[in-house]
C-alpha cells in the first residue's frame, strides 16, 4: 500500500539533511538497509495505530526541539557502585571521562570503530534484531536509529565480569540531538549487568540490541531523568536463547516525552524474560509511554511485564503491552500487569494490553488498573500519627514496590528508592 502523503512528507523532511555515517562495507550496507526500511515504512504520525496515544511529531521533526539543561543536584546515580563507566556527553562518547574499555570477560569497542572494521562480530548483530523486530509491528524510529546512529558501544560478554557496566549520560547542550546505538552480545553461560543513568540530550534516540545465548544472563537497570524538557525514544530488541535470562528495569523521572519500546523474542526453551518499569510524572507536560512486545517461540518459557505509573497534575501515562505465544510455544507462563496511580482527576492513563495465543497449553494472565490513593489505608497511617503527605508518599512508594522488586540487586533498588522518595517529597 502506498504511504500516505503526510507520512512521505514527514519522512523526507526528516531525512533531507540527515547524514549517514560511513565505515566498512558491511556497516554501510546495514545502514543502507535500515534507510530503505525507513523509506518503505515511513516515519510515524499521530494517525498510526501504534502512535495513537503518543504524538511522535517532536521525535520525527528534522530539528530537535531544545531542552533546558537540567542541574543535577543529587549527584550521579550508583556513584558508590564499583562499575565500568562509559560516558556519553550529549550522545558523544567521552573517552577521558570513561574508564578503559576493558574488563575481564568483556570485549568493548566504540561503535564507530567496530563499524569501520571489516571483520567484526558486530556485523552479525547491528540492525539485525531491529530488522527482525519490525514484524508484525513496524517501528520506523528504530530503523532510523540504525541508519543514522553516530555513536555507541558494542559489548561482547564472554565471562562473568564482576563489575556492572554503566552508560552515564550527560546533557550539556540545549539543542543536542543524540542518536546512540549499542550492542550487547552475551555468549553462552556469560553474564553481565548494564546500568544506564542520567539525562542524555535534548532529544535522545537510543537503540539497544541484546543477544543472549544459551544459559546467558543479561541484567539491565536504567534510570531516566530528572530532566523535564527532554524527548526520548528508546528501543530494546533482544533475542533470548535456551535457559537464558533477560531482565530489564527502567525508572523514569519527568520528561516531556519518553517512549520506551521493548521488543523481546524468546527463541530457546526454558528461558526467562522480565521487563519492568516505574515512572513518576507531575504536570501536563509529562508524557510517558511504555510499549512492549514479547514473542514466545519456545517451550516452557516465562515472561513478565510489570509497569507502574504515578501521575499527578494532568500527567499522561501510556502502556501498550503484548504477549504473542506462537503455536509451538507450549508451557508458556506469561504475566503482564500495568497499573497507574492517579493522584488527581486531571491525570490520565491509557492502556492497551494484548494477548495473542496460538499454543493450547499455556498460562497467561494480564491486568490493568487505574486508581487513586486508598483512602482507608491513608486514614490508617494518619491515625498512627503519620502526616498526610508522608502517608501518601509511603503509599505511593508501596504502589511502585512491585515494579522495583523486579530489580535483582537490592543495593541498586535502595538507591533508586531513595531518589523516588526525594522526588515524592519535592512534588508533595
Amino acid at each position, binding site marked *: 500500500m502506498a504511504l500516505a502523503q503526510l507520512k512521505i512528507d514527514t519522512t523526507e523532511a526528516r531525512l533531507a539533511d540527515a547524514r549517514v555515517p560511513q565505515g566498512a562495507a558491511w556497516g554501510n550496507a546495514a545502514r543502507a538497509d535500515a534507510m530503505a526500511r525507513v523509506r518503505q515504512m515511513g516515519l510515524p504520525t499521530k494517525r498510526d495505530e501504534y502512535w495513537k496515544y503518543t504524538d511522535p511529531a517532536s521525535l520525527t521533526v528534522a530539528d530537535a526541539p531544545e531542552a533546558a539543561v537540567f542541574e543535577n543536584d543529587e549527584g550521579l546515580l550508583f556513584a558508590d557502585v564499583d562499575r565500568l563507566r562509559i560516558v556519553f556527553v550529549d550522545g558523544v562518547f567521552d573517552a577521558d571521562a570513561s574508564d578503559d574499555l576493558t574488563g575481564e570477560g568483556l570485549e568493548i569497542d566504540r561503535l564507530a570503530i567496530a563499524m569501520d572494521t571489516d571483520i567484526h562480530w558486530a556485523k552479525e548483530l547491528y540492525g539485525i534484531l531491529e530488522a527482525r523486530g519490525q514484524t508484525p509491528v513496524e517501528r520506523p524510529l528504530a530503523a532510523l536509529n540504525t541508519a543514522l546512529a553516530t555513536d555507541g558501544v558494542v559489548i561482547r560478554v564472554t565471562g562473568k565480569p564482576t563489575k556492572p557496566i554503566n552508560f552515564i549520560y550527560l546533557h550539556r547542550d540545549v539543542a543536542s540531538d543524540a542518536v546512540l546505538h549499542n550492542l550487547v552480545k552475551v555468549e553462552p553461560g556469560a553474564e553481565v549487568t548494564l546500568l544506564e543513568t542520567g539525562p542524555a540530550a535534548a532529544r535522545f534516540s537510543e537503540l539497544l540490541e541484546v543477544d543472549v545465548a544459551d544459559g546467558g544472563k543479561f541484567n539491565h537497570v536504567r534510570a531516566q531523568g530528572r530532566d523535564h524538557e527532554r524527548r526520548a525514544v528508546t528501543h530494546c530488541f533482544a533475542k533470548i536463547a535456551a535457559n537464558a535470562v533477560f531482565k530489564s528495569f527502567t525508572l523514569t523521572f519527568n520528561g516531556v516525552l519518553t517512549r520506551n519500546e521493548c521488543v523481546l523474542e524468546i527463541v530457546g526453551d526454558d528461558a526467562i524474560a522480565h521487563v519492568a518499569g516505574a515512572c513518576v510524572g507531575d504536570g501536563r507536560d509529562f508524557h510517558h509511554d511504555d510499549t512492549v512486545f514479547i514473542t514466545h517461540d519456545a517451550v516452557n518459557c516465562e515472561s513478565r511485564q510489570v509497569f507502574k505509573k504515578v501521575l499527578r497534575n494532568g500527567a499522561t501515562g501510556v502502556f501498550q503491552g503484548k504477549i504473542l505465544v506462537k503455536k509451538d510455544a507450549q508451557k508458556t507462563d506469561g504475566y503482564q500487569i500495568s497499573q497507574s496511580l492517579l493522584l488527581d482527576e486531571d491525570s490520565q492513563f491509557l492502556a492497551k494490553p494484548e494477548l495473542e495465543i496460538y499454543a493450547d497449553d499455556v498460562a497467561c494472565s494480564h491486568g490493568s488498573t487505574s486508581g487513586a490513593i486508598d483512602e482507608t*489505608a491513608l*486514614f490508617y497511617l*494518619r*491515625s498512627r*500519627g503519620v*502526616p498526610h503527605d508522608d502517608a501518601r508518599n*509511603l503509599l505511593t512508594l*508501596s*504502589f*511502585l514496590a512491585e515494579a522495583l522488586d523486579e530489580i535483582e540487586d537490592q543495593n541498586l533498588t535502595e538507591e533508586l528508592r531513595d531518589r523516588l522518595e526525594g522526588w515524592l517529597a519535592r512534588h508533595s
Partner: protein
Amino acid sequence: MLEIKGLKVKLEEEDKQILKGVDLSIEPGTVHAIMGPNGSGKSTLSYVLSGKDGYEVTGGAAMLEGADLFDMEPEERAAAGLFLAFQYPVEIPGVGNMTFLRTAVNAQRKVRGEEELSAGDFLKEVRAKAKSLKIDADMLKRPVNVGFSGGEKKRNEILQMAMLEPKMCILDETDSGLDVDAMKLVAEGVNALRSEGRSFLVITHYQRLLDHIQPDIVHIMAEGRIVKSGGPELALEVENNGYADILAEVA
C-alpha cells in the same frame, strides 16, 4: 482524659443521624467499656473521635486533655495521644510492618519535639514488645497486615499501641473474629499497658472480652445515645439477659 459532651454526628453523604447526643467522661487511668446492639453507633463514635472522613459533627464537643479533637487532623490527634485499635486493621501491601511502625513512632516523636529513635533502639524495643504478643520476626518483616490471620492483625494493633504509648486508647471490637486463646493474648497485651496515666475505651458486643480486660465503668449504647452506665455487673446483665430488658427499662 476524654470528655465528650452532647456529641451529635451524621453521615456526610446522606441525611442520617448516627450519634444523637453522646455524653462520656473518662478519667485518667480508667477503663470504660461501651456495649450495645448492632447499629447503635459504637464504631461511629470511635471513627469520629479518631478523625475518619465521611462524618459530620452537628453538635457537641470532644476534648482530649482539654484540647478540642475536632480542631485536629487525624495525625495530630494521634500525636496528642489518641489511639484507635481498628475493628478491621487495614492491609497495606508494599509497606513493611517495621517501616510502618518506625515511621509512625518517629512522626509522633517529631511532633512532640522528641528525637527520633535510632534504628538500633527502635529494633530492640519492637522485638521485646513483639515477643510478649507472640509476634515473630517474620510478621514484623511482612507488609502491614498482608496475609495476617484475624488474630495476628489484632495482635499487630496492640503492638502498635504498645510502641506508640498513647494516653487514650480506643479498642473497636478488638474481640471480633478472635478465638479464646487469641483473645486472652490480646487482653494480656492491653492489661500490660494499663497505667495511671492511660485510659481505655473498650467497644464490644460481648461480655467475654471484659472477663479479660476488667472495666471500671460499663456503658450501654443504643440508637446513638448512652442509655445506661454502671459497674462491671452491667456487662454481666447484658450477657445473661441480652439488651432487650435494659432497652425496655430505659425507654
